[in-house]
């Protein structure tokens, strides 16, 4: 009953658009948009109710593959539905903004379809975040490490590693080992030392557990043994997670040393074992809280420092660390870099596909496929030219700009043509296709030329010139899309209209 009513509402909306806004109707934004969003919601719901223990290894790549295939099928289905009804080829009262409107509608529909594969991982992350807060994870990991240190305080080494460093700026960032024995009392045990520059020393001092200054140019740096028995490789993310305005931090080996090992403590072993057992079972389904070991055989951590292997094996921490890795892998999947990659994937795939649809709908079928062929042939020929020409960093950019100008000139001929010419049609199609990428090409060309120009200068002298490179690149990416929209509403719209209406020879 409800489905029938929904269908009826969609049908009524469809009829309303058909009779009042044929341009929007022809893009099928109402059906493709509604069904795409509906599928996205359904997918989110399925992902939400599907069995998924945040501690278990993610199988999200299977989901992504499956949904990507569905996304492709949906796109093909929409294409078949859309392209056979070639609306532009019917002469009517079209407004200049109609082109932009249709392009944006194509873009939105394709972007929604392309976004489907991102839904399962987003939901998985949300579920992992809901199941384990960052504060909880950090607190538990710290607690586990403290308790292990307490239980093992008599068996684990406490001696710090010592390394001697001498400042020598001639090494220019290359850490160099030297062996001559030093003539001072506190020389390193292994009788070697390192030559490093000031910048490297500054870096080492920042992360050092303890430092002893011998002279102005010689430093001994002490490194605490590793007491982070429970650890996950994405722990750096905790630095960014905040709770009640206090930064959450995983206790470092030095913190653990100071808290537990520096001064021997009297402990209630049974109580600590019991608490540790509860924590273990919280993260590992294989652990027995009584024995603090797993029911399954774990991989040996042989090869690590002896005490680390011994303790990790004793408590089967492989499972704990692995489950923690799985949780944090899901929780902290969406970092800035991943997000930047993802939006570019969606943006560029949607941009390219919607441009292809737009071009197809504004040209004859023959000219469209000849344009694709021309693009492939030109790419191959240009690639050969670039490969065989003398080395030039900017060949690619120069060829691209040259093609753009050539296509512009050929397209301009349409306005004086007496009949429809396939060459000018191909040129116009390729011109439109290249337009959104041109600002990026020109910006890249500019920075490449700049880099070449200052290649022989010290980096610091021209560093400021590249300060905003990434920002300019970003502006160029967005500007390309805006330029395309602007030209679609003006020149390109006129050129397509004129070209398509011209008589055949």
């Amino acid at each position: 009953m409800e489905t029938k009513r929904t269908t009826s509402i969609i049908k009524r909306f469809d009829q309303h658009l058909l009779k009042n806004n044929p341009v929007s109707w022809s893009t099928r934004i109402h059906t493709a948009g509604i069904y795409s969003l509906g599928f996205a919601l359904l997918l989110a719901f399925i992902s939400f109710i599907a069995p998924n223990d945040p501690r278990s290894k993610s199988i999200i790549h299977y989901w992504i593959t499956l949904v990507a295939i569905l996304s492709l099928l949906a796109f093909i289905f929409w294409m078949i539905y859309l392209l056979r009804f070639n609306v532009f080829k019917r002469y009517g009262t079209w407004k200049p903004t109609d082109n932009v409107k249709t392009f944006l509608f194509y873009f939105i529909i394709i972007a929604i379809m392309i976004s489907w594969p991102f839904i399962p991982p987003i939901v998985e992350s949300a579920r992992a975040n809901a199941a384990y807060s960052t504060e909880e994870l950090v607190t538990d990991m710290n607690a586990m490490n403290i308790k292990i240190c307490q239980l093992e305080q008599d068996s684990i080494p406490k001696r710090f590693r010592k390394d001697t460093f001498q400042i020598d700026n001639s090494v220019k960032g290359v850490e160099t080992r030297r062996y001559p024995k030093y003539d001072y009392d506190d020389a390193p045990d292994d009788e070697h030392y390192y030559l490093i520059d000031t910048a490297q020393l500054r870096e080492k001092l920042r992360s050092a557990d303890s430092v002893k200054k011998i002279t102005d140019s010689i430093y001994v740096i002490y490194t605490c043994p590793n007491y982070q028995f429970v650890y996950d490789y994405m722990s750096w993310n905790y630095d960014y997670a905040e709770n009640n305005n206090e930064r959450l931090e995983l206790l470092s080996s030095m913190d653990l040393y100071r808290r537990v090992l520096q001064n021997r403590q009297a402990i209630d072993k049974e109580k600590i074992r019991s608490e540790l057992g509860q924590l273990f079972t919280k993260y590992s389904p294989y652990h027995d809280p009584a024995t603090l070991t797993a029911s399954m055989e774990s991989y040996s951590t042989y090869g690590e420092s002896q005490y680390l292997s011994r303790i990790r094996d004793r408590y089967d921490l492989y499972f704990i660390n692995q489950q923690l890795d799985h949780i944090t892998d899901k929780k902290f999947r969406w970092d800035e870099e991943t997000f930047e990659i993802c939006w570019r994937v969606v943006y560029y795939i949607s941009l390219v596909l919607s441009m292809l649809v737009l071009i197809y709908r504004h040209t004859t079928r023959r000219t469209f496929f000849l344009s694709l062929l021309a693009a492939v042939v030109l790419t191959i020929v240009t690639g050969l030219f670039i490969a065989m020409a003398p080395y030039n960093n900017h060949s690619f950019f120069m060829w691209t700009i040259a093609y753009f100008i050539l296509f512009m000139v050929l397209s301009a001929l349409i306005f004086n043509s007496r009949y429809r010419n396939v060459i000018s049609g191909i040129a116009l199609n390729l011109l439109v296709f290249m337009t959104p990428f041109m600002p990026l090409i020109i910006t890249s060309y500019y920075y490449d030329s700049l880099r070449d120009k200052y290649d022989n200068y010290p980096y610091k002298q021209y560093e400021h010139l590249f300060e905003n490179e990434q920002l300019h690149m970003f502006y160029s990416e967005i500007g390309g899309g805006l330029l395309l929209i602007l030209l679609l509403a003006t020149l390109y719209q006129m050129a397509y209209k004129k070209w398509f209406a011209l008589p055949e020879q």
Partner: protein
Amino acid sequence: MINHHVSEISSYLQHQDYSLAVRRLLDVCLDINKPELIRKAIELSRIYNRTIKDKQAISQEFLNAANELTQQVSAESIVSPSSELLVSVEQVSKTYRSGSFTLSPVSFKVATGDILGVVGENGNGKTTLLRCLAGQLAIDTGTVNHTQIKEPGYYAIKHQVAFIPQRIPRWYGLLKDNLHFSAAIADVHAEENDLMVDFMLERLGLGAYANYTWNQISSGYRTRFEIARVLLQKPSLLILDEPLANLDINAQQTILTDLRFMAKSIKHPMGVVLSSQQLHEVEKIADNVLFIKRGSCVFQTKEKSKEVNAYVLELETVAGRDDLLRVLGEGNVNIQFNGGFYTITSTAQSAQDMLNKLVSSQVSITYFRDITYSTKRFFN
């Protein structure tokens, strides 16, 4: 003007030409341009079509509704617009790039309300001429002047000049949706869109097929739907390439009559150019007929109809050639037989005289047609 239409419709109703009466009522209501009258005419047409579909006798309800609408129409007044020149074609010629065919220079004019028939054998240049006129083919010499188009770019020409090819491109989706779409891109929106689509469906007898798809209708109905679609876009000139090719004899007659009425519409008069092999049917409704032979226009009825130098008739009879020569007078006539019928040419006797002689001599005649003024004479 309206009285003439009303008496015409009353006559159709009186003599039980109900189909024609309904179609004319639809036309007149559209000309009056009052939505409530158009709706009533649409409803009347639906009643009529239901009756025909159910194979029932015409009901009193229909007759009452028809008479009531006729009365309402008679109270209205409409002014017939004067005929205006639509397109002037001067010495247009076209040679294909391959050089395989040349259309020699041809000139003619089409005004609003005119129907121009283009006839000729297959492969003689009819479609080429029509495509040049529609702006689909670039012409080599001459001019095609669309006088009603203010900025005659090719887009404007193609927007105003509707061309229906012999092979109509396939439609997708529901037929009715396609009609709504065509009306909408011609700036006919909302309720007016519904009204005009319903009107066109009823006017061309397509109401029963509105919710069908392209595959579900015959080629004859496809032609009619295509005509409905282009008419919704209100073209000033309608060009049809062989529109009768897929139609049965009754449908041909109906379409030609409809085209005649639509061309002379008061609300939206237009010119019609059509090519066909159905010479007699076309000649009956066309104001001017061009006969194209091997790429040249050899005859235009409008220009040369008074310049005939012989009377020609077609005759189908069981009588032999000798009998005919005896009756019509040997030496006075030339008789040719193509296996089916005789073509009799005489410079001295008119077709009517020859028919009188044959009837008085009791020659059995199964078919007779005076083709003195017909382009049929040029077909060999």
